[in-house]
């Protein structure tokens, strides 16, 4: 190689290296608007594939949204169907309420039973929030539940006036040993209350509607480590005593879906499962059609980079948004457990996180809170996100035509989106258009459904070309009979001679 060419080549390589190393700050939509997030999803082989992010930043709620006071922290968010946002502030003992546009509505600190009537504790002091760490708005009775971890009460407020309806103190006949300090709360349509107690290994505390203890709910199995298991199996009783017990990992957060199932997440690294959909027996019935629902797939040996789920929220059509503390990411899973999108991250630019705490759906928008930045982001779907969510909804509701339309739009915006190919294939399969369905299942890398479509296609082909099979079969039979006849003739001849 001549010296000149060599120099040129190195220059090109250097330029490429600089280009590759340059941080890509923004992704752009077709119309040129900048998105704050870059999304990805996993393909069939578990490789991350770039996709447009499903959400972009719309509104920021921060100290400027408040009047007369500031945020101390933001620890939990819940929303109501009519678009109110409830933000828990543990440090300044408040629950702040905003409307769907991020405009401040009111703030609750001292609890009242009526206009100008302050609620009193049994000892006569005035009743106020101390460390509200979780809220839940129940649509059916229009009541706001606030779990206070410092004074160990659950307050039930009227959803319109925010006057105190009743107080649910710590239940008396609890069987577990973990101290009762309600941190996250959800209430189902029958009024049963599910409470997560921080670092509790017994499970979720389930209370009856009247606040009495019902039982522990949900099993969070620890991951079995083969090495530990081996040492435990050969250890003596005394050694075992010193080793300590393996406790069931606790739950971190709960939510409720539209069918009344309790969704739960755990951030404990030793948990075997991270996202739960619990039925009334407390068994995990979540669907995972492609991969385990563990966020980022590439696990590290010391769990340090594994996703740690700290909050979950579910839409009416089963799309779960899960917040990961490790990388500040939001994962979207559809009802079948396919990952629709992942986006978000830590950083200092607008829309990024420093210490995310919770998230909640607000219609099709998402509210995500960050306690260190003391703000809540209202995220709104991008074109791709809107199409993906709409397709998911239509598919969940069985509206095939509509789903096809939206899946097609998804593919137009994102050719890497396997979920859409499979969705289109399923739709064609329903209409018995097997050959077309096979094409889409192949693109979507779904061997399970491809096989189903192929079964139909093969049956069709066999029926169509039945005369070939019939012909071959008759030919074989004729040959068989002929050889038999020949054989017997020969034998008879042999006998005769």
């Amino acid at each position, binding site marked *: 190689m001549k010296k000149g060419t060599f120099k040129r080549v190195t220059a090109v390589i250097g330029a490429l290296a600089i280009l590759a190393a340059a941080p890509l700050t923004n992704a752009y939509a077709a119309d040129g608007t900048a998105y704050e997030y870059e999304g990805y999803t996993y393909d069939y*082989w578990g490789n991350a594939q770039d996709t447009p992010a499903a959400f972009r930043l719309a509104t920021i709620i921060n100290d400027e949204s408040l009047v007369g006071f500031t945020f101390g922290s933001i620890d939990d968010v819940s929303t109501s169907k009519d678009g109110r946002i409830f933000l828990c502030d543990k440090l300044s003992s408040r629950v702040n309420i905003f409307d769907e546009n991020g405009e401040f509505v009111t703030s609750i600190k001292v609890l009242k039973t009526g206009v100008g009537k302050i609620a009193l504790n049994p000892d006569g002091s005035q009743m106020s929030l101390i460390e509200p760490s979780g809220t839940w708005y129940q649509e059916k009775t229009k009541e706001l539940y606030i779990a206070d971890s410092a004074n160990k009460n659950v307050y039930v407020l009227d959803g319109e006036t925010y006057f105190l309806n009743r107080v649910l103190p710590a239940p008396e006949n609890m069987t577990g040993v973990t101290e009762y300090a309600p941190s996250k709360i959800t209430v189902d349509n029958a009024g049963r209350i599910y409470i997560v107690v921080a670092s509790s290994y017994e499970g979720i505390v389930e209370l009856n509607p009247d606040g009495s203890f019902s039982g522990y709910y949900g099993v969070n199995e620890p991951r079995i480590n083969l090495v530990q298991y081996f040492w435990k199996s050969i250890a003596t009783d005394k050694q075992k005593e010193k080793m300590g017990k393996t406790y069931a990992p606790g739950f971190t957060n709960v939510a409720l879906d539209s069918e009344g199932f309790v969704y739960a997440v755990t951030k404990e690294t030793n948990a075997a499962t991270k996202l739960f959909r619990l039925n009334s027996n407390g068994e995990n019935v979540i669907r995972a059609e492609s991969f385990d629902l563990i966020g980022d797939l590439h696990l590290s040996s010391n769990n340090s980079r594994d996703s740690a789920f700290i909050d979950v929220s579910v839409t009416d059509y089963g799309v779960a948004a899960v917040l990961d503390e490790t990388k500040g990411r939001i994962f979207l899973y559809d009802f079948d457990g396919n990952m629709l999108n992942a986006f978000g991250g830590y950083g200092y630019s607008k829309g990024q996180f420093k210490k995310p705490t919770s998230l909640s759906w607000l219609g099709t928008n998402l509210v995500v809170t960050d306690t260190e930045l003391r703000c809540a982001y209202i995220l709104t779907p991008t074109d791709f996100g809107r199409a993906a969510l709409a397709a998911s909804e239509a598919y969940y509701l069985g509206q095939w035509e509509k789903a096809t339309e939206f899946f097609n739009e998804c593919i137009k915006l994102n050719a890497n989106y396997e979920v859409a190919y499979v969705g289109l294939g399923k739709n064609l399969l329903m209409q018995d258009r097997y050959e077309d369905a096979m094409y889409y299942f*192949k693109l979507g890398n779904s*061997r*399970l459904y*491809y*096989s*189903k479509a*192929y*079964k139909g296609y*093969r049956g069709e082909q066999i029926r169509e070309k039945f005369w070939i099979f019939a012909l071959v079969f008759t030919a074989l039979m004729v040959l068989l009979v002929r050889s038999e006849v020949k054989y017997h003739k020969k034998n008879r001849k042999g006998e005769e001679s």
Partner: protein
Amino acid sequence: MNKLKYVSHCVFHPFDGFYETKHRGMGSRWIPWAILALYGIVSCIDVQYKGFVINFYHVSNMSSVRTFISSITIFLLFALSNWTVTTLMDGKGKLNDIFLVTTYSLVPVIFCRLIVIFLSNYIIREEAAILYAVTAFSWVWFGFMMISGLCTVHEYGLAKNLVTILITAVAAAIIIFLLVLFISLIEQMLGFFTTFFKEFSRRI
């Protein structure tokens, strides 16, 4: 031609067949290489043309050369390391004999694999178990041919044969280790000479 026909005799009567290939001149020099090459080609076909339902390869990442080499290397390595072990343990087999046994044993594997590749294009998921059974059967056959063939060419009993095969695995690991060592040494040496000549040419 006669020798080529004799391959099928080895497949169905391994004790007898491998005795004749060794002592009666029914063995061949080029047939084993042809079979091994065929095995490599079939491995490539396997990746590319197996039916979608049971084809889990990442086809866009597939490289025929890599598949070919990696599929045949293990058998070359086996023949070589088995020879190194058995020469020390009174084995009567020559390297050629061992290589012949190894490759002839692959014949049922190749045959079954071709059948599986063809049929896999016409099956659904529930029927895949049949094809897996066929594949497993072919490997059992391979194992039987290998063991009987090695017993015959080395004039070993079964127990001693199994022991030598175990040691062969260790020997193979050592060979790989030495190869890696050798290659990295050569690399360093070449690196040294290139820098030496570079420096040298710049000083002049």
